[in-house]
């Protein structure tokens, strides 16, 4: 494989990049291979090599950059990018038919401990319209990743598979620092094959720490554990949700426009020396458009009566107009593939936020798969939807080139 630590990601001489046909069977083989190759954040190397080999086999320039991103620059009229990593989880990989029976099960295996995963290119799993691929990442986001790789090869547009999206977004951070902006970005996440995601909330994390002197638990004075639990409730109440103070359920249709407060870790108790009670709370905030991290910090500081709060780096919210050329191209492509297009704004955060903040170009997110299966033990992808997503992406790329 070519390596090029100094590469900028731009096509060297601006010349047209050759396109190459990819059969449906080969496209399905790629996604099945990638799903069967474990790639939790920080351990993406094997999947990245498989992805790079796909580009090499179609005579595309490709290399792994300093952080492990798979870089395949070409026509920068459009950049397809998705993440190589998945969340951890042992979800057995298999392909089933319409009756949920295993298909080619002898060759599609969960290879958590092995390196050799092969699929027969003549197997029914690779052509069956009713086939479903099960496994970690099939939805989030190996399905979108593979669909974009196929469409990039077929149309000659740029492609990057980034690492560590599920943890630090290190791959996307490196990419925006190391590469010029393309004309348009399509980020790969599961929107469903007939939907386009136009917005995500922003994100910032904070850590609250408080300590009190150790005392007998029969005394009425508040200890650090009580201060910490009260702080969480005060902060949630400060960002009053449409469901009422402190409520943060996400089944309200306007959650996107609110701040969600979510404590994700609590570590509290008497210190080993026995002289103090300490409490630490990690808390995550989802930020709607029109609100920034300074607003969050000011509100939190105003209700923090005791203890200290440290905020991390913030990711701003991202919302795109449906009236761009990119939006038009997707609606046309989805209708051409037999779908009725829908537009989404998501309550989470994605690498699309970083691309939107760093690059002055249209950004939207697309990919096959039902996002309610993200990170779940029964993550699966209908391969016919994957095929349709490939067709939509190819149509969009051809339209925008």
């Amino acid at each position: 494989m070519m390596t090029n630590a100094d590469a900028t990601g731009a096509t060297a001489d601006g010349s047209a990049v050759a396109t190459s046909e990819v059969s449906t069977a080969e496209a399905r083989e790629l996604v099945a291979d990638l799903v069967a190759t474990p790639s939790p954040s920080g351990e993406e190397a094997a999947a990245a090599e498989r992805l790079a080999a796909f580009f090499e086999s179609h005579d595309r320039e490709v290399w792994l950059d300093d952080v492990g991103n798979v870089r395949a620059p070409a026509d920068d009229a459009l950049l397809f990018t998705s993440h190589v990593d998945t969340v951890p989880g042992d979800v057995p990989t298999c392909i089933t038919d319409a009756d949920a029976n295993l298909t080619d099960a002898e060759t599609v295996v969960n290879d958590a401990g092995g390196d050799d995963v092969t699929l027969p290119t003549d197997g029914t799993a690779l052509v069956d319209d009713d086939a479903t691929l099960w496994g970690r990442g099939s939805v989030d986001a190996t399905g979108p990743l593979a669909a974009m790789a196929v469409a990039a090869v077929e149309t000659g547009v740029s492609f990057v598979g980034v690492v560590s999206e599920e943890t630090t977004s290190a791959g996307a951070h490196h990419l925006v620092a190391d590469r010029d902006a393309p004309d348009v970005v399509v980020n790969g996440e599961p929107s469903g094959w007939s939907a386009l995601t136009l917005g995500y909330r922003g994100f910032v994390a904070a850590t609250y720490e408080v300590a009190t002197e150790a005392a007998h638990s029969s005394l009425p004075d508040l200890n650090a554990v009580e201060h910490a639990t009260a702080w969480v409730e005060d902060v949630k109440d400060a960002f009053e949700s449409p469901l009422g103070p402190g409520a943060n359920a996400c089944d309200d249709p306007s959650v996107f426009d609110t701040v969600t407060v979510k404590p994700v870790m609590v570590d509290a108790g008497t210190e080993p020396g026995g002289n103090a009670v300490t409490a630490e709370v990690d808390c995550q905030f989802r930020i709607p458009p029109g609100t920034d991290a300074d607003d969050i910090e000011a509100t939190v500081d105003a209700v923090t009566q005791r203890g200290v709060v440290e905020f991390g780096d913030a990711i701003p919210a991202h919302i795109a107009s449906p009236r761009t050329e990119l939006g038009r191209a997707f609606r046309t492509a989805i209708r051409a593939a037999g779908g009725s297009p829908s537009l989404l704004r998501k309550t989470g955060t994605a690498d699309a936020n970083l691309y939107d903040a760093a690059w002055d170009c249209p950004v939207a997110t697309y990919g096959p798969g039902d996002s309610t299966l993200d990170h779940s033990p029964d993550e699966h992808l209908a391969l016919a939807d994957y095929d349709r997503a490939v067709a939509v992406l190819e149509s969009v790329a051809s339209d925008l080139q």
Partner: protein
Amino acid sequence: MTTCTECGADVALHDDAEAGEIVDCTTCGAELEVIDVSPPVLEKAPELEEDWGE
């Protein structure tokens, strides 16, 4: 010239209108998607829906 699917008012498309484009009904304000340009066909444009996660 075609008609708004929401209020029935006349809607004029500009000469270089393309399929997939979103136009506004100047009578009722509805957002309409151009499904075809020859002959012109409009549908109510998809609304922005809310969804979970990434």
